């Protein structure tokens, strides 16, 4: 069969751009139902203890506009929102484990009435001792919060013999690195609407990444069977991982109120409630040790990775696992020993955030690589070149790197783009420049530990006029996946992009397609679309061949001109559709894809944890004001081997956006907790980068196609968030001569250390 000739237009636009610039895209607050109530949440005032009662519960029930109050006693199904484990109650039964945990729900006629009723709650409670720090939670006498001895999960890697590796080393470096929380701060806060259906079922509409997780939670909490549940994703104003787990909680809450009142109920958090309750990036403490020969060949890596999972484990096991799999860096190292712990504490649960446990782990290892280069008196680019993964290399899990490894190319291109050259703190004057570099790799998709969800479905249905609807199970949340699905479908069918409409995900339309996480949409969801489109295309080839008097094999589909061609003649795509309808052919198909062959040995941590890796290098220049401690990122080149860019502008946008989130992570996003209570739950108290904090990030797309991805594409969503903070901290060292081993690295930290130097 001849391959479809693909459309190549560099400047073509996103499928959702037009409606979004018109202001008419319907986000969750734009979705309304007649007779709709508004929900609000009563939350725990203490970080750990027993809530004996809400003393004024009856009074709340009678407040103006209030139509229902629901507590843990009113849950028809099980009081569990299911994630990796079954430990997160939908509403606190009596014991609460973090400040802000949901205790009860109120539905009222207006948002103000609902919130004011929830705020008026008075509690009778007994407060327990609490633990807030992951390392403290490991101590034998620590208060018990969850898991076995407060361990949500533990993973390890054992490759070779690290003692031998360190004996062979001429140089050893070791460091302990710390990261605080990071908050997603998507612009649209969490929100859902639950609608009771006349047959006893329930429909939920909402801002979310994982409609099928929401479906699972609704089944569990309401006791309604799967066929009675419908979940539809609405236009979603950013996710970044923050809408992976939390929407299951909101949806369960809204559903409880809707079933109780038999009216539609909407819950939308305000910014403060969103800050207080939603899952965050895990704070981490990471110890890494590298040994290398004087020629710069790394002989051993040892690491211990401890993340603070908070009160309930949500996604912590997979975060800890992804972290440990990647913690020794994208290097071929013969001896690796690494341990990873996700700990339970009395803080808000941590879940998924772009990078998913790699951001912290690779911050540590990439900063330490710089220290190793310095100790070896070697250029940090050169040190990396001597150790990076190439085709045929082995990772820390013993996986042999096969096709599609463009790491060296990313490293060379990123460094060249900014004329990477170290300054060694030599700049005179108040403002000092420095440059930093980092390299990372990223296992695309859910991998061996998430294999159960590593699947996706799609449906392609060509209508009589040649327009096409594509039903998918993976969501557009700003990253551009609907445009990618549109391109994959159109380029396979040989129709114009304008003909293809990608529908909002709806759990009743497509089989469970797993979550929209782990940078998997293009690769896995894209393969499902490709599968469906190919089936329809095969039908069209047969139709065209029959009409033109040749074999289907002889038909070439030209997506550039939307034509089906052979030596005997040609038909336009629309003529082929017409003919297919005339002949009553099946013009729709279900597509399916599942990822195969991922392995991980729990004892040794050896195996092929992911089937495909994306490779990245970041090079940046910073300017440090030594009087104020202010760091300005002045240049940033980010090179990513993504296999194949399906939609160039979206790929660039992912790189630029992810990198700027990392600038915030490195330099100013500072969540402050006191006894488990968040003190700065606002965008003024917790500052994300504005246009004045960001620099123009230069995206460099490197394309080493991988056979598994559609048209060779790999995943890209998360890699820009992974190595960037280390590159910035390495540049700060180059400018100032001071090693900072934490994020956020605030101006006051820099001024304090600089003042020590001048004494």
């Amino acid at each position, binding site marked *: 069969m001849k391959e479809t000739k693909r459309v190549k237009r560099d400047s073509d636009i996103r499928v959702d*751009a037009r409606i979004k610039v018109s202001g008419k*895209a319907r986000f969750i607050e734009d979705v309304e139902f007649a007779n709709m109530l508004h929900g609000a949440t009563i939350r725990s005032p203490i970080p750990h203890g027993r809530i004996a009662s809400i003393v004024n519960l009856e009074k709340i029930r009678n407040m103006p506009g209030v139509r229902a109050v629901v507590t843990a006693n009113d849950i028809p199904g099980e009081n569990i929102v299911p994630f990796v484990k079954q430990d997160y109650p939908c509403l606190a039964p009596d014991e609460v484990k973090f400040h802000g945990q949901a205790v009860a729900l109120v539905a009222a006629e207006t948002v103000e009435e609902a919130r004011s009723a929830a705020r008026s709650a008075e509690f009778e409670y007994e407060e327990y001792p609490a633990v807030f720090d992951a390392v403290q939670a490991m101590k034998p006498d620590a208060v018990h919060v969850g898991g076995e001895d407060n361990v949500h999960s533990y993973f390890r890697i054992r490759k070779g013999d690290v003692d031998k590796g360190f004996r062979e080393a001429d140089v050893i470096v070791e460091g302990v690195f710390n990261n605080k929380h990071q908050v997603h701060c998507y*612009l649209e806060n969490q929100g859902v609407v639950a609608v009771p259906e006349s047959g006893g079922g329930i429909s939920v509409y909402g801002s979310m990444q994982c409609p099928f997780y929401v479906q699972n939670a609704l089944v569990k909490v309401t006791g309604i069977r799967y066929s009675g549940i419908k979940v539809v994703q609405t236009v979603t104003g950013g996710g970044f991982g923050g809408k992976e787990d939390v929407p299951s909680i909101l949806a369960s809450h809204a559903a409880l109120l809707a079933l109780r009142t038999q009216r539609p109920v909407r819950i939308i958090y305000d910014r403060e409630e969103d800050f207080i309750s939603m899952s965050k990036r895990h704070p981490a403490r990471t110890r890494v040790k590298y040994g290398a020969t004087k020629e710069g060949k790394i002989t051993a890596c040892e690491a211990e990775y401890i993340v603070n999972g908070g009160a309930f484990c949500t996604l912590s096991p997979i975060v800890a696992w992804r972290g440990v799999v990647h913690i020794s860096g994208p290097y071929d190292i013969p001896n690796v020993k690494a341990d990873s712990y996700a700990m339970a504490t009395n803080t808000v649960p941590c879940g998924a955030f772009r990078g998913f446990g790699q951001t912290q782990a690779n911050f540590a290892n990439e900063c330490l690589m710089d220290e190793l280069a310095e100790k070896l008196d070697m250029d940090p680019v050169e040190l990396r070149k001597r150790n990076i993964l190439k085709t045929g290399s082995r990772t820390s899990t013993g996986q042999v790197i096969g096709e599609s490894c463009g790491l060296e190319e990313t490293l060379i291109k990123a460094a060249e783009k900014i004329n990477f050259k170290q300054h060694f703190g030599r700049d005179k004057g108040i403002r000092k420049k420095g440059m930093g570099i980092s390299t990372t790799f990223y296992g695309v998709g859910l991998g061996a530990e998430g294999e159960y969800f590593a699947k996706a479905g799609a449906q392609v249905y060509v209508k009589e006029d040649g327009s096409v609807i594509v039903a998918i199970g993976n969501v557009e949340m*700003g990253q551009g996946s609907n445009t990618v699905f549109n391109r994959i479908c159109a380029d396979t069918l040989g129709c114009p992009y304008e003909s293809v409409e990608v529908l909002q995900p709806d759990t009743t339309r497509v089989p469970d397609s797993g979550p929209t996480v782990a940078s998997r949409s293009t690769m896995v969801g894209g393969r499902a679309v490709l599968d469906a489109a190919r089936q329809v295309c095969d039908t069209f080839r047969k139709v065209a061949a029959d009409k033109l008097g040749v074999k289907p094999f002889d038909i070439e589909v030209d997506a550039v001109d939307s034509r089906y061609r052979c030596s005997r003649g040609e038909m336009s795509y629309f003529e082929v559709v017409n003919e297919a309808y005339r002949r009553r052919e099946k013009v729709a198909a279900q597509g399916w894809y599942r990822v195969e062959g991922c392995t991980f040995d729990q004892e040794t941590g050896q195996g092929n944890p992911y089937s495909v890796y994306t490779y990245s290098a970041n090079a940046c220049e910073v300017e440090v004001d030594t009087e104020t401690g202010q760091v300005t990122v002045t240049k940033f080149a980010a090179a990513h081997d993504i296999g194949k860019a399906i939609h160039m502008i979206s790929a660039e946008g992912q790189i630029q956006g992810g*990198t700027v989130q990392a600038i915030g992570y490195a330099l100013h996003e500072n969540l402050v907790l006191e006894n488990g209570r968040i003190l700065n739950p606002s965008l003024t108290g917790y500052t994300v980068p504005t*246009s004045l904090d960001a620099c123009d990030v230069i995206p460099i797309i490197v394309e080493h196609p991988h056979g598994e991805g559609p048209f060779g594409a790999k995943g890209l969503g998360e890699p820009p968030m992974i190595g960037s903070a280390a590159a910035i901290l390495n540049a700060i060292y180059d400018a100032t001569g001071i090693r900072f081993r934490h994020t956020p690295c605030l101006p006051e930290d820099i001024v304090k250390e600089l003042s020590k130097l001048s004494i």
Partner: protein
Amino acid sequence: MKINFILNDNIVNIDIRPDKPLLRMLREDLGIKSVKEGCGRGECGSCTVLVDNKPVASCMVPAGQVHTRKVTTLEGLESSGEIKQIQDAFVKSGAVQCGFCTPGFMISAYSLLTGNPNPEREEIRAAVSGNVCRCTGYTKIIDAIELAAEYIRRFK
């Protein structure tokens, strides 16, 4: 309190609680949905509208304050065609990802380009610094505003 004001070239007479935020009045009472609430505290710029041609965070303006004044939103600028070049440039440049902040950014861009048809990149950065975007890293938004300036110059 009864107030009257001009909303997108139409006269509005409405009986409203004077401390109700303009954002809530626009969304709930007047069907203006392009204004988005990202924070409710004047921090994010997603609800930016023009009051007497100046960009303001509508979540911070009490409804009573717009009495006798002129309020302009994306809906108004779109139907008058005045924001078309900015919309086209945002689409073309890839300045839109999730789209939640987009209407606010376009209003700030419109206000900038009205007073300064040929802004430097740094002037654009400053003009939109009250609008937060978490998706794009800003580069393509600033590209879009530069391109919009070019479209407008060509159009004139």
